[in-house]
C-alpha cells in the first residue's frame, strides 16, 4: 500500500497568497498538513455545494419567472399555537435544533482529540439524537403540508412550482441529515468501543482508524448545518 499519509510540517512554509503559490507549485503534495481523509471530505463537500447551489438556483429561476404569485412562506409554514398563528415557528425551532447539534458535534471533535473516549461517544450520540429530532420535525412539516394539499405539481395558494422546489430542496437536505445520523451512530459505536485507541481494523476498509474520523464526521455534519442556513434564508425567509 502506498505510503501517502504522512503530514508535512508547515512551520517553514510561507503564509498567505505566497503560501498558496508555494503549495500549488508542481511536483509536490498540495495540502501540506491535511490528511487524505480530510482533503477528500472537503472535495466531497465542494461537490455538495454545487448540488445544493443548483437546487437553490433552479428555485430562484422558477420563482423569478412565474407570473403567478409565490405562496407566502411566512403563512404557509405558520403553526397554530396557544390560540394564535405564529409565523415560521417550526422552521425557527428546527434551525435552533440543527445549530445545537452542530455545537455538540464541535465539542465531540475536541474531546476526541483529547482522547476522552466516553465523552466523545456521548456527544456523538447526543448529536445523532438532535439530528434525528430535526428529521422528525421535517417529517411532521411534510405531512402537514401534504395534508393541506401541497403537491410537487400544485398547491392551494399560488405558483405551482412551490411544491416541487420545496420537496426537492428540503427532501435532499433531510436525506443528508438522515445519512449523517446513521454515520454519527456508527462513529459513536467505534469511539465507544475504543477502536481508535486499540487500532481495531474497520469492517469495510480493514484499516486502523484514528480520532480524525470524528473530525471528518464533524465536517460533514457542520456542512449539513451550513446548507440549512442558506435554505432558511432563501426558501423560508425570502
Amino acid at each position, binding site marked *: 500500500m502506498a505510503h501517502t499519509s504522512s*503530514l508535512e510540517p508547515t*512551520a517553514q512554509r510561507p503564509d498567505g497568497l505566497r503560501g*498558496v503559490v508555494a503549495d500549488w507549485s508542481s511536483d509536490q503534495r498540495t495540502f501540506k498538513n491535511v490528511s487524505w481523509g480530510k482533503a477528500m471530505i472537503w472535495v466531497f463537500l465542494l461537490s455538495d*455545494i454545487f448540488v445544493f447551489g443548483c437546487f437553490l438556483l433552479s428555485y430562484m429561476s422558477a420563482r423569478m419567472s412565474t*407570473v403567478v404569485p409565490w405562496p407566502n412562506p*411566512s403563512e404557509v409554514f405558520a403553526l397554530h399555537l396557544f390560540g394564535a398563528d405564529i409565523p415560521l415557528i417550526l422552521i425557527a425551532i428546527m434551525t435552533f435544533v440543527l445549530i445545537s447539534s452542530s455545537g455538540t458535534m464541535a465539542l465531540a471533535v475536541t474531546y476526541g482529540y483529547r482522547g476522552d473516549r466516553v465523552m466523545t461517544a456521548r456527544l456523538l450520540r447526543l448529536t445523532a439524537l438532535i439530528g434525528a429530532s430535526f428529521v422528525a420535525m421535517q417529517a411532521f412539516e411534510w405531512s402537514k403540508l401534504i395534508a393541506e394539499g401541497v403537491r410537487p405539481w400544485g398547491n392551494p395558494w399560488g405558483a405551482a412550482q412551490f411544491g416541487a422546489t420545496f420537496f426537492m430542496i428540503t427532501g435532499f437536505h433531510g436525506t443528508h441529515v438522515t445519512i449523517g445520523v446513521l454515520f454519527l451512530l456508527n462513529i459513536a459505536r467505534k469511539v465507544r468501543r475504543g477502536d481508535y485507541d486499540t487500532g481495531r481494523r474497520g469492517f469495510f476498509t480493514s484499516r486502523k482508524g484514528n480520532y480524525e474520523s470524528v*473530525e471528518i464526521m464533524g465536517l460533514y455534519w457542520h456542512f449539513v*448545518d451550513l446548507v440549512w442556513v442558506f435554505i432558511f434564508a432563501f426558501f423560508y425567509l425570502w
Partner: protein
Amino acid sequence: MAHVSTDIADGSHASSGIEAAPVQAGHQQPPIKVYLMVWGLLFVLSLFSYLVDYVGLQGGLRWTLILIFMLAKAGLIMAIFMHLAWERLALSLVILLPPIALMVFVAIMASESDYVVWTRETFFSIIK
C-alpha cells in the same frame, strides 16, 4: 500497515507543535469556550433573522438583513466549526473560490428569468 502508526505519530507531532506554529498545526483545536461563544452567536443571529420575518420587514431592508445574517452564520460555521480559520490558504481557497462560479451562474439565470417572465407577461396576456 506501518504507515497508519506514522499517521498517528504525525498527528500528535502536529498538535505538540502548537506552540511553534498554532495556525498551521493539523489538529489545532480552539478552546471549548470559543465553540460555546460561536454556538451562542449562531443562536442570536438565527433569532435576528427569524425576527426579520416576525416583525414583517419588507423590500430591500428585509433582503439585506436576511443576507447579512445568513453570511455571518455561514462564515462562523465555516471558520470556527469547520476549522477553515486554521487551515492553510491553499485548502481554504479550494473550497471558497469555486462557488464564485455559482454566483456567475446566478447572474446568468437571473437575467434569463427576467426575460422569461417578460415573454410570459407579454404573450400570455395576448392569448387571454
